[in-house]
């Protein structure tokens, strides 16, 4: 590419950072004020590179929630310019900077949304626990997996089809306490990006979406402490420079304590030793060796621990589970236009459940562990091209649900062995500006997965040694996106995305549980495959004050997995032996109106959609809606800043009721009436709706004081609507008297919940 460049081009490159903390800003815009088409944006490490014909320019640096900065450049030779942006919004600048303001219209990406954490923190939260995954559920195309749950489904895809990354490490279980809280402690998070449309080629391994979460790097200017005390958990984050402007650290911890407080009472009872808690620990350290080299080390460790003792009957249970991730990254700048990142990533999810009574002891455990290496390049030959390419290799180990038990001296258990897989990929992608009207993003990803030994084939008994391939699958995953600028404030975008998924999680419940196990593609289980076609119209109004968009999509899914009918989890079978395989389709339209600026901001999202599956082994292939199919889904999200002390937030959600399998009839077996179920997911619960509100109060502070406290008051489900969480039926039969009573119940779990959280900052 470089060869075709005119000789008089020169490159300006550097990092865009927050002026106060030195945190790099991801996705900040950099462009020529005179011709906004000559622009770029910062990558995941805050780096930008813009190659333009030599000349004089006024460059604008902008980032949502920050004041724009304009810099005059006399560009003759390559030069490095680092920019520090200050927080705050000034309305009048909108006029100055004209159209480039909003990438939603001008970028090629479809279905991509960035959510800076500060915006998320202003919204009401159940029990006052700020939760990025619950905020994502308020966006069109993203459905909650249930009341109060952090689990979600994107554009009709399964829960396992979301690639959730924390500093590039996949997080296999994102929920604490059965999914009611996500593992992401908002205090440790800098930015969250959701990609539900055209997944760029650097991402792979999942069909539906990418949620890319970046931790804060730590303030490299000065020490800062912030934290909070809430109803559920307390938080503390410490960050600061190790070497000023060169190196910083961040440590953030969160822990629940409700049952800790009750320990004095529990200790005196028959249940001494019973407890439940969860905690998270996020840490990050970075060191900038030079303008060209930077090292990042980040880690996450979180656990849920449940323990139950009944001392009187000598009965005990213990269930710890959680994730651990570690990411080591090295950024290197080969020159002004070629940026490299190398990552080595470890991540682990493990679950264990053990218990015993008297002479019986029992243990169940499962998990997944990856070693993952990546090499990614960003190459900016000129402002018309942004080229990315890279390679990735992952070694997976899957521990199935292994049961070990003992009865006195005799041990028993399942004879499952761990399964192993090697997943590799290579990709290249170019985002090309074709004149002022068209942008094209072309990408190709090649992915490959081998189930490897040690393994003994179920099909033919063959033995495989360590690393020896048992079965190999591979595929090309082309990705293409086109943007056609209709007018300065309006564009039309289209995208086609092919994706393959080699590891799977199949849940038998309405939402995912810590007990659900990830399984690899094997000689029995084929990779899931998906194609998504998406089309969108984007239009901004009133000098980009209002963003609107309509996106439609159709998805075609192959090798979808579910449990066979009449499946019972006895823990004694390899789950893949109870799988059935089929196809899926999902389609819908998403309407989005957003106001990002001003004292009153927020969005309205509406989705009309359908998500269906067909399995030849289930009702002879009848197409049925998934449990997360919602015909209508509406979210209204608003923030209002009244003055420096008070700001308010509100959320309204409405969704079509969840599909469930109705009762068809009852029949007699012995003295019991047995429920006979009708066609799968052929009935609906009543619609779900709810209003949440919040108010944040920041007491006035004197200028010298380094300490700042604030109070957040939040009310979840303000009008106490009893949204059904699940239903069940109960039948009383008495053949002796000849009477039987069948009843159906619906259970709601979250009534109106007020909460208060106290937060503080010290810097």
């Amino acid at each position, binding site marked *: 590419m470089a060869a075709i460049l005119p000789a008089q081009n020169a490159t300006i490159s550097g990092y865009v950072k927050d002026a106060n903390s030195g945190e790099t800003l991801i996705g900040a815009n950099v462009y020529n004020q005179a011709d906004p088409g000559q622009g770029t944006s910062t990558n995941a490490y805050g780096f930008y590179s813009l190659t333009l014909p030599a000349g004089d320019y006024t460059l604008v640096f902008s980032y949502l929630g920050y004041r724009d900065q304009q810099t005059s450049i006399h560009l003759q030779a390559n030069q490095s310019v680092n920019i520090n942006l200050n927080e705050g919004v000034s309305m009048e600048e909108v006029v100055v900077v004209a159209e480039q303001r909003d990438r939603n219209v001008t970028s090629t990406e479809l279905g991509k949304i960035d959510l800076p954490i500060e915006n998320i923190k202003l919204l009401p939260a159940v029990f006052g626990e700020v939760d990025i995954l619950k905020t994502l559920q308020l966006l069109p195309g993203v459905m909650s997996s249930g009341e109060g749950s952090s689990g979600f489904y994107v554009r009709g895809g399964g829960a396992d089809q979301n690639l959730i990354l924390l500093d590039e490490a996949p997080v296999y279980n994102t929920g604490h306490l059965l999914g009611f809280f996500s593992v992401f402690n908002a205090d440790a998070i800098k930015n969250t990006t959701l990609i539900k449309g055209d997944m760029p080629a650097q991402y792979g391994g999942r069909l539906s979406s990418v949620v890319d979460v970046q931790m804060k790097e730590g303030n490299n200017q000065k020490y800062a402490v912030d934290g909070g005390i809430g109803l559920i958990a307390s938080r503390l984050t410490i960050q600061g420079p190790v070497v000023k402007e060169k190196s910083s650290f961040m440590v953030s911890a969160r822990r629940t304590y409700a049952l800790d407080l009750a320990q004095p009472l529990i200790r005196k009872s028959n249940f001494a030793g019973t407890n439940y808690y969860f905690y998270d620990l996020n840490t990050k350290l970075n060191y900038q060796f030079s303008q060209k080299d930077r090292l990042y080390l980040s880690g996450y460790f979180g656990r849920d621990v449940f323990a*139950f003792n*009944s*001392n*009187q*009957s*000598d009965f005990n*249970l213990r*269930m710890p589970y959680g994730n651990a991730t570690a990411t080591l990254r090295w950024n290197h700048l080969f020159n002004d236009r070629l940026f490299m990142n190398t990552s080595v990533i470890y991540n682990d999810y493990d679950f264990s459940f053990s218990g015993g*009574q*008297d002479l019986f002891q*029992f243990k*169940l455990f499962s998990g997944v562990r990856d070693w993952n290496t990546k090499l990614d390049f960003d190459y900016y030959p000129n402002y018309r091209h942004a080229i990315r390419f890279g390679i990735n290799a992952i070694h997976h180990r899957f521990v199935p649900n292994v049961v070990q*038990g003992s*009865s006195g001296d*005799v041990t*028993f258990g*399942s004879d499952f062995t761990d399964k192993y897989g090697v997943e590799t990929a290579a990709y290249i992608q170019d985002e090309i500006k074709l004149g002022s009207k068209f942008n094209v993003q072309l990408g190709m990803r090649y992915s490959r997965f081998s189930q490897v030994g040690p393994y003994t084939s179920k099909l033919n008994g063959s033995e495989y040694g360590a690393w020896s391939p048992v079965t190999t699958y591979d595929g090309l995953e082309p990705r293409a996106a086109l943007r056609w600028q209709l007018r300065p404030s309006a564009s039309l975008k289209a995208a086609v995305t092919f994706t393959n998924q080699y590891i799977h999680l199949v849940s*038998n*419940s*309405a939402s995912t549980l810590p007990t659900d196990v990830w399984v690899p593609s094997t000689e029995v289980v084929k990779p899931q495959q998906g194609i998504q076609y998406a089309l969108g119209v984007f239009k901004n109004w009133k000098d980009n004050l209002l963003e609107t968009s309509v996106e439609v999509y159709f998805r075609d899914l192959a090798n979808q997995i579910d*449990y066979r*009918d*009449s*499946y019972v*989890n*006895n823990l*004694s*079978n390899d789950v893949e032996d109870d799988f059935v395989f089929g196809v899926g389709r999902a389609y819908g339209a998403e309407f989005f109106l957003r106001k990002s600026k001003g004292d009153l901001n927020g969005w309205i999202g509406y989705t009309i959609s359908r998500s269906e599956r067909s399995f030849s082994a289930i009702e002879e292939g009848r197409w049925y809606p998934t449990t997360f199919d919602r015909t209508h889904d509406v979210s209204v999200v608003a923030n209002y800043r009244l003055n420096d002390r008070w700001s308010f937030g509100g959320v309204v959600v409405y969704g079509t009721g969840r599909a469930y399998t*109705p*009762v*068809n*009839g*009852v*029949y*007699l*077996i012995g*003295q019991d*009436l*047995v*429920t*006979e179920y009708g*066609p799968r997911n*052929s009935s609906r619960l009543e619609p779900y709706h709810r209003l949440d509100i919040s108010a944040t109060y920041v007491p006035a502070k004197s200028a010298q004081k380094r300490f700042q406290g604030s109070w957040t008051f939040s009310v979840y489900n303000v009008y106490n609507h*009893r949204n059904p*969480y699940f239903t069940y*039926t109960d039948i009383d039969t008495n*053949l*002796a008297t*000849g*009477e*039987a*009573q*069948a*009843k*159906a*119940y*619906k*259970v*709601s779990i979250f*009534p109106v919940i007020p909460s208060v959280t106290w937060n503080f900052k010290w810097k």
Partner: protein
Amino acid sequence: MARRSNKWIIWLIGLVVISGMGCEEEYIPDTIDSPAKLVVEGYVEAGDQPMPAYVILTRSRSFFQKLNPGDLEGSYVHNALVQVSYDGITATLPEICLNELDTTLREVVAREFGFDPDSLQINICVYVDLSGQVVGQFGKQYQLHVEAEGEVLEATTTIPELVPLDSFRFEPTPGTPIDSLAQLIATVSDPADETNYYRQFIRINDGIYDPGFASVSDDALFNGKSLDFRINSPEDTPDDNPEVFGLFHRGDTISIKWTNIDAEHFKFWNTFESSRNSGGPFSSYVRVSTNIQGGLGVWGGYAVAYYDAIVPEK
């Protein structure tokens, strides 16, 4: 054992979350008007004191709020052709209804089929091999053929070889012993070269043989091992009274009906018992499986052994 333990955790954590906050209301669910299906409950036994082969034939009913005795009685399907075949022999089972019998016989028959004869309000009808043509034998296959109201049902079951208990004993209750109660520990030596499925029933004093709430197990976790395991008293479920669940009263006379069943028969009871505990947020509904072609229910063979004992006084 595994499934039971799993439920514990779910409920306990559920309690932590929900305690004092949840709300439950009754509602009228959607029901579907689909044609009622024929339901078979039939067994053939080999081993100790085998019951004669019998089939109870009923129709499923739509799900509504209350069924009275007339509705239940109306479930029985009469005048069907019910045939059992094995070894080239075909036996036709005649239908008998309890109110056709004299009081003494009626009492015996009712008790055999698991009903308390004293307060029996409805007229139970059974197709039963009164003439003893169907002889239950270990390792044999038994075909069932039913023609009723224009429909034909077919099913096959196998009576597996009997794997008896090695022994059983009563032990003090776990933890702090409760003097009036005891736990029942049995030992079985599972054969290694085949998959075995077990089901047990317990009779206490004059009661009926009751499977309790979790009566079936396969040998996947203990194939080929000689294992001590606890047999629970059917009187309670762990939800009702967890502290004394499964324990026996000292001084009671108990009888264990210990059986071996085939894979399909196991699957029926496994899904049956699991479906009673499902439908909540944490487990999907379970559709009860069937081995009846053209209908619902089960045609099951049992290899049976009985063991009697008095729970010893402390």
